[in-house]
């Protein structure tokens, strides 16, 4: 807490070529919460992560939390085993010749031997990741989700200052993903270990990360708070045509048991969504996809849509190659994106400054898009991260 801001940052710059791929990125990310390296496959995000871990050497400079790990001008390059990082790879890569316990202790023993204070205790990690009943098993006898949890635990127990995750969910099916995501959110809240999370899935980034660096073809396209990046219409080719959406933070105000509905307050406007087991007063993060939002210039009546939020148009980006336009709507304290047809924009005479009503069906919230916000106050009933209810999303 007493440290200066510079000591809580990752400053990275790497340039170099690997085969016919060239990487040239420079970015900063806070060493707090989860920062995402986001981009399509082949954009260089995994290479960047390998450079940070020291597994790949490109020319550049890397300062993590005030420590210089690489500085070509000064001839500094810390070997990977001297860097206090934990890495979780796409495939868990557990050591097959060791039991789960042996895997978990591999890094822990070495950290202890080199005198690193055990800030992260094995008891906590085992409890947090639900590994207690797996300790004596062989890695071959675990499910994909269990393997990945062990890999996370193993990395954490090596007492890293920074946890690097290279698409840790991409080899898992939807069920296993839904099972493991709440654990990740739990880590983030309980252990306050900074993470750098590589992903090509904007929904994952929106759900987990606070900060993101967007890469494309080996170059940095944008960096900043996830919330801001998701509201930028100019980034739509990268943040996804289909999955584009924004984040809203809302507070739980009540439940209607009769209709199985949960009510949330968003800066004075009410949002209703299918019931979730959330404590009243808990702050939640909702992702609303642009394609789930419709616009109207007059408040519609006799309509099934439950969420009618008043706002004003901030920005419109028309894509002349398609039928669509992306719009950004200020709904007071937050912004929504709505994907509408260009024809609608013309018919409704939408323009920046125009008052509109944003319509969002309740069902749009019934997806793997909700998480208890990292800043949520410790509510007795709201400690447990919310599980998505396994909707198939159709």
């Amino acid at each position: 807490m007493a440290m200066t801001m510079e000591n809580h940052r990752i400053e990275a710059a790497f340039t170099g070529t690997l085969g016919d791929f060239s990487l040239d990125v420079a970015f900063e990310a806070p060493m707090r919460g989860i920062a995402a390296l986001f981009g399509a496959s082949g954009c260089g995000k995994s290479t960047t992560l390998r450079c940070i871990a020291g597994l790949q050497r490109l020319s550049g400079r890397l300062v993590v939390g005030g420590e210089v790990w690489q500085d070509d001008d000064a001839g500094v390059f810390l070997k990977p085993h001297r860097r206090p990082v934990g890495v979780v790879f796409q495939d868990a890569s557990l050591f097959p010749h060791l039991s789960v316990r042996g895997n978990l202790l591999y890094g822990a023993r070495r950290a202890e031997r080199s005198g690193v204070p055990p800030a992260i205790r094995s008891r906590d990690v085992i409890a947090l990741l639900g590994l207690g009943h797996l300790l004596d098993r062989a890695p071959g006898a675990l499910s994909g989700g269990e393997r990945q949890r062990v890999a996370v635990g193993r990395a954490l127990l090596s007492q890293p200052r920074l946890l690097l995750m290279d698409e840790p969910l991409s080899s898992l099916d939807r069920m296993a993903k839904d099972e493991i995501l709440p654990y990740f959110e739990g880590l983030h809240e309980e252990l306050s270990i900074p993470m750098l999370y590589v992903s090509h899935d904007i929904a994952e980034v929106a759900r987990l990360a606070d900060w993101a660096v967007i890469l494309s073809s080996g170059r940095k396209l944008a960096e900043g708070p996830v919330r801001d990046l998701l509201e930028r219409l100019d980034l739509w080719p990268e943040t996804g045509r289909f999955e584009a959406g924004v984040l809203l933070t809302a507070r739980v105000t009540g439940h209607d048991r009769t209709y199985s509905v949960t009510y949330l307050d968003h800066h004075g406007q009410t949002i209703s969504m299918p019931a979730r087991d959330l404590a009243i007063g808990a702050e939640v993060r909702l992702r609303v996809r642009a394609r789930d939002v419709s616009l109207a210039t007059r408040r519609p009546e006799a309509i099934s849509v439950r969420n009618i939020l008043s706002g004003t148009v901030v920005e419109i980006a028309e894509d002349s190659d398609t039928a669509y336009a992306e719009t950004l709507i200020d709904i007071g304290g937050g912004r929504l994106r709505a994907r509408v047809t260009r024809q609608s924009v013309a018919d409704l005479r939408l323009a920046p400054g125009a008052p509109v009503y944003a319509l969002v069906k309740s069902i749009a919230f019934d997806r793997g898009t909700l998480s208890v916000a990292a800043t949520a106050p410790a509510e007795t009933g709201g400690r447990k991260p919310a599980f998505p209810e396994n909707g198939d999303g159709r």
Partner: protein
Amino acid sequence: MDIAELWPVVRLTLELAVVATALLLLIATPVAWWLARSRARWKEAVAAVVALPLVLPPTVLGFYLLILLGPDGPGGWIAGAFGGRSLAFTFEGLVIGSVVYSMPFVAQPIRNAFEAVGDRPLEVAATLRASPWDAFWTVAVPLARPGYVTGAVLGFAHTVGEFGVVLMIGGSIPDETRVLSIAIFELVETLRWAEAHVLAGGLLVFSFAVVTIMTVVEKRARRPGS
């Protein structure tokens, strides 16, 4: 006939095979590691040198070894340092010859095993604070265990069974270089069939056991999750 007379031969053979196998594993480990991991262009040339005993007639190998081990070669100089004259026709010379002769049978399976381990487990070990040396012993070698088992069994069996090279560099000095294969040859030459039967039959059973054990071990190594 006197079976008791055969025991020194069997003991010497086992001694030779045990010492040679131990040395083989020791030397083959860095060689196999380098062959598996190096990106040097000339590594296949080194691999070919290691594999040479597979195709060379044992007499050719034995001839060169004889020169190297003899009084005028490096073997002679080393022997000189210990008050000897030559390493040829000594137990030590036989050990050296056996190591050279059996190297491909040990280095190849271990190299394959190291290659199968790949980069990833070693990278993981590095991110878990293991130095390269540490990771080698705690990750690479344990994961390459099937290769070590195959290499050790093959190396041992080949050393027990070698004939041509031993004949060239060892001769048949009792308790020094007179090993099984040579003894069988001499027994047959002197028409002592009964003793030849005992030794030959013993080797047959031994070889069968070796092949069976290896097959079982390999099968077990391939079983997922073991």
